[in-house]
C-alpha cells in the first residue's frame, strides 16, 4: 500500500452522479454480475448434455420413417428443453440470495445506495438472461439438427421417387416439409421460456425466506409436482364432490399459489403437427408473465422486511 496522496487529492475528486430512486444502470450492473457469476460457474455445461441427447436420438431414430423420426425428434428435443430450462431456473436461482447473505456480499451491495427491489430485480434479470441464452442455444441446435435431417430426408425421398410421377414426388416432399421444421415450433419455445421465467421468479420468492438452498430446492420440487398435477386434481375434485363456496375458495387459493404448470405444456400439440391458436398462446403467455410479476413482487415484499 502506498501513501501516495496525489492520487486522491481534492482536484481529482470523482463526480458521482446524484442518487436516483430507480436506476436501470444499477440493475444492469447486478444483472451482468449475476450472469457472469452463473457463467463462470459453468452452468452452460448442461447444453453439452442437450447436444449429446439431440445427436444421439437423431442417430437412434434413423430406423423409423422420416415422419416418425421428425415427430420423435421434436418430442424429445422440446421435452428436454422444457425440463432443462425448468431445472436451470430453479437450481440457478435457489442459491443466489442465500449465498450472498451467507458470504455477506449482500451487506456490501446494500450498503451502497441500492434499493432492495433493484437488487432482487437485477438478480432475477440475470437468471432470465441466462435462460434466454440457454433456450436460444438449445433452439438453434434443435433447428440445425432438424434442418439437416430434413434435407437428408428430402434428398432420400427425391431419390426414391426418381421414377415416380411428378405429382407423387411433390406430394411426398410436401408431406415431409409439413412434418419437419415449421414456424409452429416458435410459440412452443416461447411458452417453455415463460414457464422457466415463472419458476425462476417463484424460486427467488421462496429463497427470500428460506434459510438454505436445499430448503428452496425441495420446496420448489414440491411446487413443481403440485403445479403439474393440480389441474387434474381440481377437475377430479369438482366432478366428484359437491363444490361449495369453501371448496371453491380453497381450490382458487391453491391455483393462485401453485400455478397450473401443465397449462404451459403446449408442445404435445406441436409435436403431432397441430398449430397452437393465437388466443391460447396469448392466454398462456399472459398467465406466465402475470405469475412472474406477482412472485417478483411477493419476493420484494418479503425481502424488504428481512433482517440481514
Amino acid at each position, binding site marked *: *500500500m502506498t501513501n501516495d496522496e496525489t492520487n486522491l487529492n481534492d482536484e481529482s475528486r470523482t463526480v458521482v452522479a446524484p442518487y436516483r430512486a430507480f436506476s436501470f444502470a444499477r440493475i444492469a450492473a447486478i444483472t451482468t454480475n449475476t450472469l457472469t457469476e452463473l457463467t463462470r460457474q459453468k452452468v452452460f455445461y448442461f447444453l453439452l448434455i442437450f447436444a449429446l441427447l439431440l445427436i444421439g436420438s437423431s442417430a437412434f431414430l434413423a430406423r423409423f420413417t422420416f415422419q416418425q423420426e421428425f415427430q420423435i425428434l421434436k418430442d424429445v428435443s422440446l421435452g428436454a428443453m422444457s425440463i432443462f430450462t425448468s431445472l436451470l431456473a430453479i437450481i440457478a436461482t435457489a442459491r443466489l440470495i442465500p449465498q450472498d447473505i451467507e458470504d455477506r456480499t449482500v451487506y456490501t451491495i446494500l*450498503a451502497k445506495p441500492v434499493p432492495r427491489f433493484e437488487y432482487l430485480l437485477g438478480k432475477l434479470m440475470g437468471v432470465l438472461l441466462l435462460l434466454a441464452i440457454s433456450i436460444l442455444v438449445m433452439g438453434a441446435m434443435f433447428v440445425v439438427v432438424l434442418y439437416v435431417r430434413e434435407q437428408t430426408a428430402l434428398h432420400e425421398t427425391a431419390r426414391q421417387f426418381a421414377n415416380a410421377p411428378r405429382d407423387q414426388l411433390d406430394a411426398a416432399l410436401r408431406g415431409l416439409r409439413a412434418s419437419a421444421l415449421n414456424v409452429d415450433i416458435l410459440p412452443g419455445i416461447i411458452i417453455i421460456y415463460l414457464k422457466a421465467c415463472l419458476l425462476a421468479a417463484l424460486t427467488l420468492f421462496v429463497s427470500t425466506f428460506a434459510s438454505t438452498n436445499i430448503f428452496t430446492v425441495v420446496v420448489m420440487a414440491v411446487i413443481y409436482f403440485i403445479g403439474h398435477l393440480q389441474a387434474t386434481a381440481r377437475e377430479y375434485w369438482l366432478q366428484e364432490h359437491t363444490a361449495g363456496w369453501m371448496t371453491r375458495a380453497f381450490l382458487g387459493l391453491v391455483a393462485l399459489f401453485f400455478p397450473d404448470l401443465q397449462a404451459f405444456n403446449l408442445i404435445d400439440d406441436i409435436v403431432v403437427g397441430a398449430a397452437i391458436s393465437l388466443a391460447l398462446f396469448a392466454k398462456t403467455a399472459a398467465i406466465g408473465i402475470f405469475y412472474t410479476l406477482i412472485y417478483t413482487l411477493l419476493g420484494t415484499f418479503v425481502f424488504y422486511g428481512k433482517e440481514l
Partner: protein
Amino acid sequence: MNTEPAVAVHRLTKVFPVPLHRQWVGAVRDLDLRVEPGEVYGLLGPNGSGKSTTLKIILGLVSPTRGRTEIFGRDSNRVDSRETVGFLPENPYFYKYLTGAETLRFFGKLCGLRGKQLQKRSDELLELVGLTNARNRRLGTYSKGMLQRIGLAQALINEPKLVVLDEPTAGVDPAGSREIRDLIVDLKRRGITVLLSSHLLAQVQEICDRVGILANGKLVREGRLEELIAIENQTELVLENASDTLVSEIEALAARSNARLVARRKSTTTLERLFLEATKEGKSITKSE
C-alpha cells in the same frame, strides 16, 4: 459550516426474537451516539456486545425495534442516506469469480460511476491499496489481507464522506494491519469521518479521536480517548540519555514535594513494532541473497 453530525443514533433499541422459544434477545438497548464530521470514532466492546448490530442499523441493513439513526441528517431507512457512505463488513467475502478490477468496477457502477471516470477511480484505488499487480487475479486467489484491502478500496469507490469499518483488521497479520491503520489515518487527514468497531484495543488507541464502549448492548463509557484513559493524578516523563545521577536527583526532588514515584523502568518498544522491524529485515536479507 455543516454542524450536522455524521452519524446520530437516538435511543436505539434492537431485540431479536429467539425462534420457537417465545423469547427475545436484546442486542442494543437505549443507545445514544453522535459521531462528528471528520473524527475517527471507535466502537469497542467484546463479542456479542452489539457493535455489528449497531453498525448494520446505521447502514439500514437491519431495522431498529425502537429509536432511529441518521447519517448526515438523513434517516438510515432512506436509501439515499448511503449515497456518501463506504462500508467494509467484518471478514468480507466478495464475489470470488471476479478479479480485483472487476470488483471495483461493479461497486463503482452501483454508486453511479461510469466510463473513464470509473476506470480512473478504480486504477487510483488499486494503486492506493497496493493491488495494482493483482488487479487481473480472481478474488478466489487473494489472501485475507488482500481481500481486506480490496474491501477498503470498494468502500472508498464513491469518495464517501463517512466510512464504516466493522473489525477492519480482524484476521489480518500485523503488517497488513499497520497498512490499514495508515490508510485510516490518511482518511482522517482528508477530512473523512471514520466509524469503526474493533476489539483490538491497542490499534483503536492509536487512531481514534473518541471511543464508545458497549457492553451487553449498552454504552457504558464514551468520550475523547485521552480523557478516558488519562490517570488524573499521575504524570510521565520520558528522558533520553539521562544519567543515573540525574534520575536520582529527579526522584529526590519528587520526594521533597510529597509526590510518590510509582514506577521506574526502561522505555520499551511495542511487540508490534518489533515484529514489523524483524520481518522487514528478513525481507531485505532475502532480497540481497
